[in-house]
């Protein structure tokens, strides 16, 4: 594969934060807006998942 990092301009480095790229995502069980718990396993049964931690904007 080509050098993806160079192509994308490299990852954003944040001081004191270790990248989790390539690691196994932490398991979770969190309540959805309907109050029902959703697990990582459930959300990734059919394919990959994009999780977006938002701060008041979309």
């Amino acid at each position, binding site marked *: 594969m080509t050098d993806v990092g160079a192509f994308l301009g490299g990852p954003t480095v*944040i001081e004191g934060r270790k990248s989790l790229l390539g690691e196994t*995502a932490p*398991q*979770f069980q*969190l309540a*959805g807006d309907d109050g029902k718990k*959703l697990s990582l396993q459930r959300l*990734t049964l059919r394919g990959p998942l994009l*999780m977006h931690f938002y701060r008041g904007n979309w």
Partner: protein
Amino acid sequence: MRQHYWDIRSLGVEFVALANEEPDNHAELRERLDLPFQLLADPDSELARALHIYHENEPAGRLIARPAMFLIDSHANGNTILWEHVSPTSRHRVEPSRIMEELMTALGFRIQVVNVIVPSSGELEHRIAALQHPPLGLHKTPQEVQPGVLVQRDFMRQLTMAAHAEVHRLAADGWRLKAVSTEYEGARPVGQRYVFARTLDEVTNMS
């Protein structure tokens, strides 16, 4: 993120938004914004902590999760973190087109996706009417219409024709039509979105 939800879903990727919130607030937010995706509550920031995005920031001393995105592989593939983007500050925004590009690369796709939005005739008239001054309907003869208004009118129509032509060109050039959906601005339908894709090659990503 809302308007890019379907772009992300077209890659076969599930999408959820998370925040340090209570589920009740999320129910209200989802209904008010009519969001097509789930909002997950991380009230104790446990997950944010586990993902190393929990930090002390503005306003002074408040602990909060940084805006961040994580692409996690399917359960069958071991839930590996394929891609991450963590914003250094809450004001930091990433270009949606860049996110799409990075997601496709992380997923091992070499595909190009083009979105064409063709305004509906109703929307076109709505926009033209909004540009008219004085408002549409007061003019009787072409002489009474300000030249600039006519230019705007023609320009809007040309844009629509160009969008139509682009849809036909892509279809004729071997691009595959992946999705057609109604484009909304709030509750108002404004046109049709055509999503075309073309595969360059597929990189096996089984490492």
